[in-house]
């Protein structure tokens, strides 16, 4: 319970809420919590380009909005492209003297579908062009908003409505796409993974991402009790378990250098994470063992990268 050590540090965060209550997310939605923390990290001077998804739907039913900062939803796959447009406009308008200079963070926000699948092209383009923006991917590991369909970010073995646990195939048959690695391959200044179960860490990483010049990417694991078939009060615990079992390691890649945020000498058994989620209910012990083996392998590889300072 390393996080409990700085339990009182919560009070150092701003009390202001830039993401207003009254939004329509499910009970116990850790994605809403992630968005709340991101909004706290960035404050007033931000412009958000959001993709279609859970967070867009719950926060913007006309004529209401949960946003106390400028927020723009266009379509599903172009959050990064819209953010590129916003960033360029700010740049040129200041340069031409049409608006006064002000430090404004351009933020693109999308889910795992809008990032790893349909949004991958726009994200890759924006990263390559080197716009000064931050991209947040809130990953609830499926197309939750449309009814829990699988995405490339759905973990191996998870049951979703389009990768159900059937008699022939049992859940997702492919391994979760490693988005942080894909983004890191674009050689951008900053890539990080974060989880709302570690709120101070998340806020610090988002602040760092926004501060750095050039593109930055933060991948946030968002526990979804509705889609993961877990109890709503377990959303924080599950996020913690995801980190402690090595399923979702917390790390940063700054100028290409890997750094683990928390290194566990011994990872928790995967079963502790899996048994709390209905989407893994059908997994046999041997399947869980296979998955755990691969998770440990990948964790070792990550540790190696961090040690090398690669």
């Amino acid at each position: 319970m390393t996080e409990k050590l700085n339990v009182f540090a919560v009070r150092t965060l701003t009390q202001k809420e830039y993401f207003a209550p009254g939004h329509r997310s499910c009970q116990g939605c850790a994605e809403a919590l992630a968005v709340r923390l991101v909004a706290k990290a960035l404050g007033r001077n931000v412009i958000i380009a959001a993709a279609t998804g859970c967070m867009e739907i719950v926060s913007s039913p006309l004529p209401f909005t949960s946003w106390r900062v400028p927020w723009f939803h266009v379509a599903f796959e172009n959050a990064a492209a819209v953010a590129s447009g916003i960033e360029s406009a700010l740049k040129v308008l200041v340069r031409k003297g049409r608006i006064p200079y002000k430090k404004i963070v351009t933020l693109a926000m999308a889910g795992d579908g809008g990032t790893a699948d349909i949004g991958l092209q726009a994200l890759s383009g924006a990263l390559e062009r080197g716009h000064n923006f931050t991209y947040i991917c809130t990953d609830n590991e499926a197309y939750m908003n449309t009814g829990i369909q699988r995405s490339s970010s759905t973990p191996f073995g998870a049951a979703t409505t389009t990768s159900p646990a059937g008699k022939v195939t049992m859940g997702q048959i492919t391994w979760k796409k490693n988005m942080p690695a894909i983004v890191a391959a674009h050689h951008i200044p900053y890539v990080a993974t974060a989880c709302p179960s570690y709120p101070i860490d998340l806020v610090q990483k988002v602040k760092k991402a926004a501060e750095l010049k050039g593109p930055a990417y933060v991948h946030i694991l968002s526990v979804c009790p509705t889609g993961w078939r877990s109890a709503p009060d377990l959303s924080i615990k599950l996020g913690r378990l995801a980190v402690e079992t090595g399923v979702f390691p917390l790390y940063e890649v700054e100028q290409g250098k890997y750094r683990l945020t928390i290194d566990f000498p011994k990872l928790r058994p995967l079963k502790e994470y899996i048994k709390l989620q209905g989407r893994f209910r059908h997994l046999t012990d041997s399947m869980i063992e296979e998955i755990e083996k691969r998770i440990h392998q990948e964790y070792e590889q990550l540790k190696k990268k961090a040690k090398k300072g690669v």
Partner: protein
Amino acid sequence: MEVSIAAAEAVKQANVDVISAYPITPQTHVVEHLSELVANGEMDAEFFCVESEHSALSVCVGSEATGARSFTCTSSQGLALMSEITYIASGLRLPIVMVISNRTLSSPLSIWNDHSDVMSIRDCGWVQFFTENGQEVYDHIFIAYRLGEDREVLLPVIVNMDGFILSHVIEPIELIEQDKIDGFLPPYQPLYRLHPDKPVTMGAFALPSIFAETKKAQEVALQSSISKILEVWRAFGDITGRYYNPIETYQAGDAETLLVTMGSCGETASVAVDMMREEGRSVGLVKIRLWRPFPFDAFKAATLKAKNMVVIDRAISIGGPGGPVASEVKAALYGEEPRPSIYNFVAGISGRDVTPSDYIKMVDKAEIEIEEGNKAGYEIYGVRE
């Protein structure tokens, strides 16, 4: 100068802030020249090539919403790819200007000109102009920005120019002095913008209980923009001497048979009209310049007195009642009595040449068909059987 270059020069003179584009034949010369202008410091704008047309328009949507005058240019497949965003841009009421270098849609793949690309987004809600020559392309960039950015309009605008037939042709272009343009086109003052000083939410989703109201508001905006279009054209004419109208006519006043065209083929058709007039035939030409909002009043005024109409379409509505222009013309005149008989030719598909003698043959055929009682015929002209 080449018309594409003229279009790029107009974008420069219009003091556009953000240009995002993805290359596609035959639009490439426009963006190539723009990138040169920016690289040489002759134009102060954010120019970048994005990774797809969908992103090209998405970038413009983002930058326009932040208050920057934005421009993109595309054709054919690119337009089809960004079509999702065209509907969104007009729903959001963002005055982006897009030049479309009209090119046919696959399949089969073809780089040559026709209107099938822009017809695929007929209902997208943008103001749509068709131009006939290079001067008109150049002029309409300024007209488009002035019109779109007007607080009473706030709609995106498409300027169509026929690919290759206009875009790659060298024509005499009369450039307008910069100070005249600066007077005609003031800097963009957005009604709402994305800025932390005044946070707004754009792009909220709408439940069925409010959606119809949002579309009604959008429809009224597009329809009522016609008065502003006429005003802007008048103001433009006052500074340049070139006055534009939603429907242009040529020898149409007393004509018994009217040719109806849209786009660059109007010029060729007018040569054919001259030839037919010399033979004493009562033929005239009606050219549609404003496609959306469709200028019902002006069109009726120009055409109702004729007996026959030969509508030339440069796109097909496969499985439908012919070409899009003919379908709309028929719908526009449906409630009128008497109204001309209409024969529809789809001609010039994918850049196949339509010469003045072709127009004469089409008028001949149409008049015979109508005489024989075929009051609403349709055929694709010139197909080898």
